[in-house]
């Protein structure tokens, strides 16, 4: 019986040709918008969390709080210093610490200047290895800095491009940083994080000297012995530093971030953004649904006599209801299938374009079958829901009333 409803419904839709397709188009646009935006949102989430892939699971980050994700040094707090490094180092469970500086610098080459940022390479080779592993960097050409090596730098892949200074920088060339000359000994491979593609690695001494830094760190990286205890170790670092600095609970001017924590907060933000985007997109889906309701109502009015005839020759109320519901469901289903495929190809197209234009940021969109099937099922359901009232109206039509019209 259900298959008969499908046959009848399909023939009705086919008979209405263009009008059916216009209604379906409304659904297609809605579903395509939802699918493409959700896909892109998921891709964006992946791209952004990719920026954080440099955070190893066994590494804690201690930063001045209030600085958050903004530029370091923006707030007036007691900056982290060598004493803090010692306090952290002496905390049980901490294996290694890397005090880090991240500062904006002026980079000159080929008579052109560019602001970029520099970060320090520690004096200790173990620390250097950890930092490079932690930042997930690989060399394109040349070599890394040796611990304590002065007058040499390693550059991120975006800085050496021709369009930055008008001339490609290659290993062996000299660049000026804050007015002083340095030799480029290595160039990094393009990484997943755009920050790493614009970095200048220089020795701690060079950096402190050229920027007049005396006893100050922007962040301290602490590697722990056992990553299962990382939360507790983070807590004890927090306790120790607070006592050492004589601060009250809740009024610390520093924060200890575990990798999970920072990823979680980013994920929460991105999830909210994705939900908002999907919400906006679903408005167009509602419009599509109203289109279905509209054409189904028109169809009931237009086919009043036909409904009367069908009832006269034995159609029960549920037969009429069935045919009409399947019809509106089909509008949703067809729109859903086409819309989902269109939305996916749209998202894939945009991600390909973004890859060309955004350079560093890799916006990867993957085929999510759950999303596709979910969108199609949702669209079918919308069709049924929007067709419900018109279908009920059709099924309750009295034969004599239908003939009189």
């Amino acid at each position, binding site marked *: 019986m259900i298959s008969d409803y499908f046959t009848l419904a399909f*023939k009705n839709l086919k008979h209405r040709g263009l009008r059916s397709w216009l209604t379906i188009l409304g659904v297609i646009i809605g579903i395509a918008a939802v699918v493409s935006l959700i896909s892109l949102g998921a891709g964006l989430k992946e791209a952004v969390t990719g920026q954080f892939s440099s955070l190893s699971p066994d590494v804690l980050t201690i930063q001045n709080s209030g600085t958050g994700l903004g530029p370091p040094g923006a707030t007036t707090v007691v900056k982290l210093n060598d004493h803090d490094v010692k306090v952290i180092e002496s905390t049980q469970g901490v294996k290694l610490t890397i005090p880090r500086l991240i500062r904006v610098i002026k980079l000159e080459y080929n008579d052109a200047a560019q602001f970029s940022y520099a970060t320090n390479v520690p004096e200790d080779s173990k620390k250097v290895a950890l930092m490079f592993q932690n930042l997930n960097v690989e060399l394109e050409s040349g070599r890394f800095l040796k611990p304590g090596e002065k007058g040499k730098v390693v550059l991120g892949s975006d800085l050496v491009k021709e369009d930055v200074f008008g001339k490609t920088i290659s290993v062996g060339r000299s660049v000026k940083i804050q007015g002083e000359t340095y030799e480029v000994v290595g160039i990094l491979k393009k990484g997943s994080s755009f920050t790493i593609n614009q970095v200048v690695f220089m020795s701690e001494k060079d950096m402190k000297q050229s920027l007049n830094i005396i006893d100050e760190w922007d962040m301290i990286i602490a590697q722990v012995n056992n990553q299962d205890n990382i939360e507790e170790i983070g807590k004890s670092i927090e306790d120790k530093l607070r006592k050492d600095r004589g601060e009250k609970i809740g009024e610390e001017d520093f924060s200890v971030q575990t990798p999970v924590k920072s990823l979680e907060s980013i994920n929460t933000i991105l999830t909210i953004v994705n939900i908002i985007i999907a919400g906006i997109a679903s408005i167009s889906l509602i419009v599509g649904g109203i289109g279905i309701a509209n054409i189904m109502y028109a169809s009931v009015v237009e086919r009043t006599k*036909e409904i009367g005839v069908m*009832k006269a020759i*034995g159609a029960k109320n549920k037969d009429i209801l069935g045919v009409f519901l399947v019809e509106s469901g089909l509008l949703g289903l067809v729109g859903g299938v086409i819309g989902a495929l269109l939305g996916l190809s749209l998202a894939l197209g945009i991600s390909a374009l973004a890859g060309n234009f955004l350079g560093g940021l890799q916006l990867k969109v993957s085929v999510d079958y759950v999303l596709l099937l979910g969108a199609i099922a949702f669209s079918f359901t919308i069709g049924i829901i929007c067709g419900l009232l018109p279908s009920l109206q059709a099924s309750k039509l009295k034969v*004599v009333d239908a003939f009189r019209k």
Partner: protein
Amino acid sequence: MSNKNIIELRNVAKHYEMGENLVKALDCVNIVIEKGDFVAIMGPSGSGKSTGMNLIGSLDLATEGEIYLENEDIENLTESELAQLRGKKIGFIFQQFNLVPNLTALENVALPMLFQGEDEEDRLRKAEELLAIVELKDRKEHYPNQLSGGQQQRVAIARALANDPEVILADEPTGNLDTKSGEKIMVFLGELNKKGKTIIMVTHDPDLAKEHARTIYSIRDGKVESVERKVKNKWAKIKQNTCRRG
């Protein structure tokens, strides 16, 4: 009631409310349709004959009185039970043909069987046989708008026969046709009657009624004005059941 009656209207009235006015479309009517008869319901427009047809065809329920279809009082049936019963016992032929426009001739003929729950293979096989009876087997894949009026009405006859009903109810079956096509339709109806089908034809044309029917109910102003029966090729008025108000 005797078993030879297939449809019986007893003391039936049908009232409509039109705005503030109560319209008595039928006012205490008695009609008895015997099995195998060829009955014409006659009357000018506005006489109430269409209302009568709706009641006889169980398309509508009476305001007062009782209607029996094969000894069953239809008043207490639900709408769906009524549809089911109607689909099985009565075949309809309309003045406007009323074929479903987006179905082929074959599918139109098969449609009443679909609503009775028959499977597709049986439906299409029977529909093809029925189209052969009305000489339209070669047009089975045509849509209604590809058929002439006469052809459409023949498809409608085939559709009316789909569930092998006892009664064929034809509402002005030749009203929209040219003379030649109309005659052909009447020949088919006559043949069906000879094969034992009860034919009820609603018409305003006295000649058509007298030529084909054996019993004629004349309706005027919502009442049965006269009942005539053809006996040995002569028409005689027969005594009506008087209306008894409960």
